[in-house]
């Protein structure tokens, strides 16, 4: 309790001052020790009952005449002090000191002067009270004036003394023995020695039990008198000190003026603001240059002066390179590049993240509600797009920490297992087709135009040697052409628009079948070797009619006279209009098609050498479009509108039914190998059937813009062609492999144009040259064109 000690020492000085004044009053100047001695005596007495501190004060002031009045005054002052406690601590302090007022006149005056008028008045009244209550020894005058005058009258040198005493050094000298057990001096009248070696005597303490009791009874300050062991004197605690003791006992702050409940200054306001700002006052240190820094700087300055710190070496400008991967094994499985797991990419901010997003990104009220009700996991956006007038108004991103955390989680929880992703180049998914350039030869350019017909050319057919070409047209003529010059060698008028022509595939026979209206005409064009021509005529005339004449569906008539000279040989008159004629590969059989949905008499097969005709079908299976013979085996293909039926002619049964997946088949061609078939249809499709594979098309080609009219296979080259109403002929590479496991390779290689579209019709028939990779096409523009 240093404060208390100090106070006690102060007390001591005060009492000393009192003693001094008293001594002067008594007379002698140099007897400094007397008051001390008195004190010592009192101390001495106190030593006997140390606990009884109240006596000491009594003893101290006992020698003083005005002690009584003083104490009375004190009492009064005490009361006053109590009254004024709330007002000001200093005032109470002064009032507490009023007991020493007799000696210290100036100080009270000064203090009183400092106090407010109100206090003055109170003091005045207190002074009056003192006069009234007091025993009337000292003061007649009331108030401070009276007091001061009284003291001035008593002690003249008091102010100077007071300054002398004021030095704190002397106060400390009181206890000269130091911090030793005071019992050691218990039996001595003194405690320690002064500078001159003289004993410092304890205050005389001659109080007995009775005195003690009396003191206890009479002295109102007994309760506040404490015994100071170090000086063995009794000290009467001032009100202030008592107050302090009380406060400490209560666990309060010693300084009464200290307000432990200062109004708090809010660093952060309780209002929610959009910007996170503090109201915290700036630190003092922020205004004061740092001392430590200054020291450091001065040290450095010193060090620089002394040359202890050298200036920094200039940095080398040439960059240094290190080969980080010099020691890395490029083939290591755990190599750096192989195990590199790139961080999952963050989504780039979009328009909705903008501070001023376009209005369509802003959520409407319903959307906002829906968003709020959604589970955060399910939300499409983890935030609400908001619109701000300017970038400055954008608040801090509240989800920032959260989002960073999630990103860290993403990176941390990212699976380190390498998933081998199959990088599929979209081009690899397209089947690798060879380049058309590698599939040569195929026809590429139009070389010859066979002109002469005056109407659309419905059908063409090439001679088996490839030297001639026959064409039938709507202008009721059949023309024979020399292939390599485009020369029309012969023109034959027939009695109607020619629907179909077919050159006998047997090179030993020179016959051309022509169909028009309801007639099939067999012509001998008389082209080629004389022997062959003669043999053909021989073949026809060598017919011997059988014994019993069977009724036949067609009538066979041998041409004679001028018609024979024109080349006509046999006329087969059909009951209905004939649309197509087709030869069997051996050249003896011939089939004609009479499309008619209502009867079973649609397809007839004729044998030329025996002039026989038979109707192979008993039932009508639909409108027959075209028929064809198998090139090698005794099969017969009949194409109706939707499907192609394959009949075995020997067993006389249906072998296969191919569904073309198109609406109306227009034409059909059989691969020379006999296992593949193409169908052209009016709905722009070309269907390739692999007979070994399935009854469904192996491939559908939709490369024509308009209805297909004719399709053809090449006899030797892996080529097929299709002609359509869009005026183009498309040549495709169609390779059939002997290996049954390998599917046919179909590559469109060339679009050949040249025919003009007339009456919405383009190419009507296509056929290949039998030996060269050339294709003929006949068109509605009355021309035949050769593409090579």
């Amino acid at each position, binding site marked *: 309790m240093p404060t208390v000690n100090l106070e006690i020492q102060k007390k001591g000085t005060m009492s000393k001052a009192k003693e001094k004044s008293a001594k002067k009053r008594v007379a002698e100047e140099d007897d400094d020790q007397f008051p001390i001695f008195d004190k010592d005596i009192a101390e001495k007495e106190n030593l006997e009952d140390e606990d009884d501190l109240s006596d000491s004060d009594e003893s101290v002031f006992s020698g003083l005449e005005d002690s009584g009045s003083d104490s009375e005054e004190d009492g009064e002052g005490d009361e006053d002090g109590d009254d004024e406690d709330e007002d000001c601590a200093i005032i109470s302090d002064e009032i507490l000191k009023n007991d020493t007022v007799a000696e210290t006149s100036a100080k009270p005056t000064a203090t009183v002067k400092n106090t407010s008028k109100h206090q003055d008045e109170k003091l005045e009244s207190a002074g009056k009270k003192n006069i009234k209550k007091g025993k009337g020894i000292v003061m007649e005058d009331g108030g401070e004036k009276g007091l001061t005058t009284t003291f001035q009258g008593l002690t003249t040198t008091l102010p100077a003394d007071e300054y002398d005493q004021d030095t704190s050094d002397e106060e400390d000298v009181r206890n000269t023995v130091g911090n030793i057990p005071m019992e050691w001096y218990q039996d001595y009248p003194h405690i320690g020695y002064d500078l001159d070696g003289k004993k410092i005597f304890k205050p005389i303490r001659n109080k007995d039990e009775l005195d003690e009791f009396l003191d206890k009874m009479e002295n109102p300050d007994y309760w506040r008198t404490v015994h100071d062991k170090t000086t063995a004197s009794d000290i009467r605690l001032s009100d202030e000190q008592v107050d302090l003791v009380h406060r400490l006992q209560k666990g309060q702050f010693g300084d009464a003026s200290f307000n432990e409940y200062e109004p708090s200054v809010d660093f952060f306001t309780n209002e929610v603001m959009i910007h996170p700002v503090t109201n915290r006052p700036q630190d003092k240190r922020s205004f004061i240059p740092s001392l430590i820094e200054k020291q450091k700087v001065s040290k450095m300055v010193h060090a620089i002066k002394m040359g202890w710190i050298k200036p920094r070496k200039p940095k080398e400008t040439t960059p240094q390179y290190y080969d980080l991967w010099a020691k890395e094994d490029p083939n290591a499985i755990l190599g750096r590049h192989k195990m590199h797991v790139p961080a999952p990419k963050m989504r780039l901010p979009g328009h909705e993240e903008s501070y001023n997003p376009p209005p369509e990104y802003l959520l409407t009220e319903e959307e906002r509600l829906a968003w709020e009700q959604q589970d955060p996991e399910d939300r499409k956006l983890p935030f609400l797009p908001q619109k701000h007038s300017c970038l400055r108004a954008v608040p801090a991103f509240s989800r920032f920490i959260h989002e960073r955390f999630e990103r860290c989680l993403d990176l941390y929880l990212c699976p380190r297992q390498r998933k081998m992703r199959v990088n599929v180049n979209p081009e690899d998914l397209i089947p690798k087709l060879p380049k058309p350039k590698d599939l040569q030869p195929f026809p590429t350019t139009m070389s010859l135009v066979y002109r002469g017909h005056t109407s659309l050319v419905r059908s063409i057919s090439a001679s088996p040697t490839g030297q001639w070409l026959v064409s039938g047209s709507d202008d009721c003529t059949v023309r024979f052409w020399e292939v390599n010059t485009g*020369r029309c060698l012969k023109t034959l008028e027939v009695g109607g628009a020619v629907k179909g022509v077919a050159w006998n595939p047997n090179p030993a026979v020179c016959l051309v079948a022509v169909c028009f209206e309801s007639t099939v005409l067999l012509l001998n064009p008389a082209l080629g070797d004389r022997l062959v021509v003669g043999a053909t005529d021989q073949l026809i005339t060598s017919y011997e009619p059988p014994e019993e004449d069977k009724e036949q569906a067609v009538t066979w008539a041998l041409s004679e006279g001028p018609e024979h000279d024109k080349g006509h040989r046999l006329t087969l008159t059909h009951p209905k209009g004939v649309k197509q004629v087709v030869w069997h590969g051996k050249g003896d059989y011939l089939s004609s098609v009479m499309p008619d949905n209502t009867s079973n008499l649609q397809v007839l097969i004729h044998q030329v050498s025996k002039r026989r005709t038979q109707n192979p079908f008993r039932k009508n299976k639909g409108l027959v479009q075209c028929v064809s013979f198998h090139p090698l085996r005794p099969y017969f293909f009949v194409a109706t509108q939707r499907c192609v039926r394959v009949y075995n002619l020997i067993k006389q049964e249906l072998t296969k039914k191919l569904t073309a997946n198109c609406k109306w088949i227009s034409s059909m061609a059989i691969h020379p190998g006999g296992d593949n078939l193409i169908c052209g249809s009016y709905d722009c499709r070309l269907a390739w059937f692999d007979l070994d594979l399935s009854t469904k098309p192996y491939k559908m080609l939709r490369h024509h813009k308009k209805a297909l009219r004719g399709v053809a296979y090449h006899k030797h080259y892996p080529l097929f062609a299709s002609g359509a109403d869009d005026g183009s002929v498309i040549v495709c590479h169609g390779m059939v492999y002997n290996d049954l496991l390998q599917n046919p390779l179909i590559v469109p290689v060339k679009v050949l144009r040249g025919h003009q579209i007339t009456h919405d019709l383009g190419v009507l028939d296509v056929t290949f040259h039998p030996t060269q990779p050339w294709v003929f096409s006949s068109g509605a523009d009355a021309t035949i064109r050769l593409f090579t």
Partner: protein
Amino acid sequence: MSQLQTRFFTENKKYSVDDVPFSIPAASEVQDLSSVINKLLEAKNGSHSQVEFDFLVRGQFLRTSLASHMEAESISTEDVVEIEYVERFTAPQPEECMMHDDWISSVEADSEWILTGSYDKTARIWSLEGKAVMTVAGHTDVVKDVAWVKRENLLNKLKARHCCRGHAGSVDTIATNPTRTKFCSGSWDKMLKIWSAVATEEDEELEEQPNRPRKKQKTEQLGLTRTPLMTLSGHNEAVSSVLWLDGEEVCSASWDHTIRVWDAETGELKTTLTGSKVFNQLSYSPLCQRLASGSTDRHVRLWDPRSKDGSLVLLSLTSHNGWVTAVKWAPSHEHQLVSGSLDNVVKLWDVRSCKAPLYDVSAHEDKVLCVDWTDSGLLLSGGADNKLYTYRYTACESDAGA
């Protein structure tokens, strides 16, 4: 580079200039060079008259400016450029137009007469002036090819001497050997047949008459039927053109994309040259010993029949727009040939400038089917417009002398 060091030389003594290098502008063209040579010749020979020259740099005709030509041919401009000059081949001048009744399938001319075969089933003989001399009738079908065997003593009386039977398909081509004692025919039956062209004893009274060694009228002279001396089989398709390289070798071109050289004595196949297209016609120049072929594409191709390794195209001349139906080497010039095409144009080529022909002769209005030269300076072409055109050309004697 504005000036080039050049040195001019020529094979023709008449126009030779001093062998000194000249510095001439690099941008100069044929006209400028020609005038330079003319100036030099005038200075040398006062009586010199203006002559148009053509210039060859390393065997290629100069067609653009000298600088660009040398850049295209990547010839160094640092050295002295050797430029050969020849008298310019003047454009053939059209002379006669002989109208036929039908397409002209073939033509063969000599110094006196022109023999043409036509689609009207006749062959005709014309004088060089374009006068119809004779019509050879007798065929029952179109005449596809004609050839002279003998032509002395042409009389008005004409009679078929022989009917050579043996082919099983239409005969498209015939050719007589240089001694004119044999001829070879090629047919659609894929065969080549060699026949004797010597008149037999029983025909001696008609010996002096010109002969048409073709399938003849059977009506009156069935007894005069001849059979082939030899049949050469090997082609897979129709034979489209046949010719004699010399007395021993027959060369044939076919639709099976091959040119075959046969030994006419033994009938062996000696060489096969394989092309990629159907051949229409062949021609052989004994001067440069090369074959020229016209095929069913736009190119005239040059072949070396002596090469053993098969398919070797020396050069292809591309300018036509249709099938090349006829080619013929110049009889007296080793570099020149003429070609006719389905695009109605006859082109005159110099193989030293293979990028472009020397002249385009576009007189025909329809397909050109046959071309021929004569030694006497006539160029003939016949086609589907029933016309046989003759053109006169000059300037080949001077060059041929080289």
